[in-house]
């Protein structure tokens, strides 16, 4: 039981990272039907800036994080404005492949800057833990879960109640009609990328607070969040949250139980388990759990 609870705690903290990343993917996809592979670059660019500001520049962590988020948001905005906007209306794959190129071009300098050593975030949590019976909860896990919960609620409220959120929902529903209602669709695209960039940076920052810190392979975490959006459905915000939860928990449970009960699957199988779940879900539901089925006219 202790083992199970421990795995659940780890799973929830992983899930909060995946949820933050998945929300970014889905917000971009909903607003402009683009699957952004540029996410890994935004993730580590933001985390890198936080690390530099909070450790080398000696700023307070609480100041460094907002600055990092803003910077990643600006980077997302620039990516959209300069590279993705000219492609609006082109085939979805062309744009997806374009974002792959964009990711490589943006990520390479950042990984070079990160260098070979691990970078710390200068976060206040460090390795401090809470004890809850036999279950050890890292304080950083607590911070992650609370932050993710707050962000998810804030986003839901934003989409539900604010004018911009309403405009974003209208754009997602039908771009031309939204345009006819006086909504600046181009600005909605920008807002989506800014939000996604900031969310990615937040996730990257949290992912780098662990023992490994920020290193040259931290970016992979953004691609590991892809199963989350596929499971939930590419265009469902609620699905992204659920998908993130499922992926995080499954990964943690696999990491805990697979070495005992299915060791023939090899070490580190937990890292590929999300993809297995994704395959299984897609075989049953080809558009994910909550994705909208595309209706095709002949």
């Amino acid at each position, binding site marked *: 039981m202790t083992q199970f609870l421990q795995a659940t705690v780890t799973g929830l903290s992983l899930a909060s990272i995946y949820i933050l990343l998945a929300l970014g993917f889905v917000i971009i996809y909903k607003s402009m039907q683009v699957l952004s592979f540029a996410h890994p670059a935004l993730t580590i660019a933001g985390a890198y800036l936080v690390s530099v500001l909070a450790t080398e520049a000696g700023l307070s962590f609480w100041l460094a994080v907002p600055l990092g988020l803003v910077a990643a948001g600006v980077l997302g905005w620039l990516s959209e404005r300069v590279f993705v906007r000219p492609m609006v209306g082109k085939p979805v794959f062309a744009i997806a492949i374009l974002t792959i190129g964009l990711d490589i071009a943006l990520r390479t300098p950042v990984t070079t800057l990160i260098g070979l050593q691990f970078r710390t975030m200068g976060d206040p949590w460090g390795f401090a833990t809470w004890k809850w019976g036999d279950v050890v909860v890292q304080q950083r896990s607590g911070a992650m879960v609370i932050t993710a919960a707050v962000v998810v609620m804030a986003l839901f409220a934003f989409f539900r109640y604010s004018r911009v959120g309403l405009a974003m929902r209208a754009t997602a529903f039908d771009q031309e009609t939204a345009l006819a209602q006086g909504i600046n669709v181009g600005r909605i695209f920008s807002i989506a990328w800014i939000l996604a960039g900031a969310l990615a940076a937040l996730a990257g920052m949290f992912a780098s607070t662990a023992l490994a810190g920020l290193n040259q392979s931290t970016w992979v975490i953004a691609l590991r969040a892809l199963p989350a959006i596929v499971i939930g459905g590419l265009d469902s915000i609620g699905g992204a949250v659920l998908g993130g939860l499922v992926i995080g928990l499954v990964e943690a449970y696999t990491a805990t139980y697979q070495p005992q009960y299915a060791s023939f699957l090899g070490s580190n199988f937990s890292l590929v388990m999300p993809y297995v779940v*994704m395959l299984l879900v897609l*075989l049953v539901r080809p558009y994910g759990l909550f994705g909208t089925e595309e209706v095709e006219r*002949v």
Partner: protein
Amino acid sequence: MRGRPELFTRYEADAAMLPNNTQRFWLVAGLVIALVAPLWLPRDWMILLSRAYVAAIGVIGLNLVTGYAGQVSLGHAFFIGVGAYAGAAFGGAPRDDVWGLGLDMLIWVPAAGLVAAAIGALVAPIALRLKGLYLALVTLGLVFLGEHIFREWDVLTGGAATGREPAQLLLLGYRFDLDGSVGSLMVRRELQIYWVMLVLLVIMALLAKNLVRSRVGRAFAAVRDRDIAAEVMGIDLTRTKILAFAISSFYAGVAGALLFTVTGFVNATSFNLLLSFTYIAMVVIGGAASIAGSIMGAVFLTMLPRVIDALGDVLPFFETASTGLLSTATLERILFGLLIVGFLIFEPLGLYGIWIRVRNYWKAWPFSY
């Protein structure tokens, strides 16, 4: 028709592989140049070009499924990996701890392709249920799963840390990977490998070129352009999609097996997402739905690092450091990314599209149309 090379009176003539004399002439000329060029090239260029030719085989495969049949696959690296290890298992020297049958090239090259094709055909049914980006994401998942399997399956891959030896380039008892001789002239192994890869590329490219003008190729294009319409016209979607994946994987498998022998060493982690992205980039930069474009893209991207290096020697202001932000490796990667972006925005038809435009300009010269 003599004197009117552009006038076709029969359908077969219109659908011929090389419809006019200019194309026939340039194919032969290009082949002759490619055959004799290495006699004057330095050895590292020979190896690099061999790698480019092998990559071209893989790119043709990806282009068949993505460019012609319209099923975007980010999982090409996985099939290349399958081919590499299948080829090594059939053609590698026998050892205690890893599989190796030490067979002839005539067997292991097609065998590597067939194993990959079989796995491709197994994956294809998933593609039947999925559309668009969901399919791309599943194939991306395949790369991660494959990487895990390659890392863990020690008897096949030698494990992640140690790796294993590739298949031997043994054809009817002759070893191409050792220096040979013709009379008193020594023929270096690099030169032999170069010629073998060139011949294989020509064979595979002609096969692909023939395929895309056949009934199957037209079915691919119909599925790409509108799958529902294709089905209405009587094209069996299931069969066509499975065939597209199987053939594409066959090419990937052959390319993987050969790539392993040319580079001499691969790691279980070599078949990662970056490799898939590189192949996608070669398709995009070369030109989607074009066999000639596939070859151009593969040669261009494989030679790019070497050219950047050479530029660093020639141009004084283009200094390249060995580490840091301005190192060759970093610059090359950034350029690689920007090339993908640039081609997609400015020339979606790739290098092949540029060539078509240049050709049309000169065809109509001095008029603009």
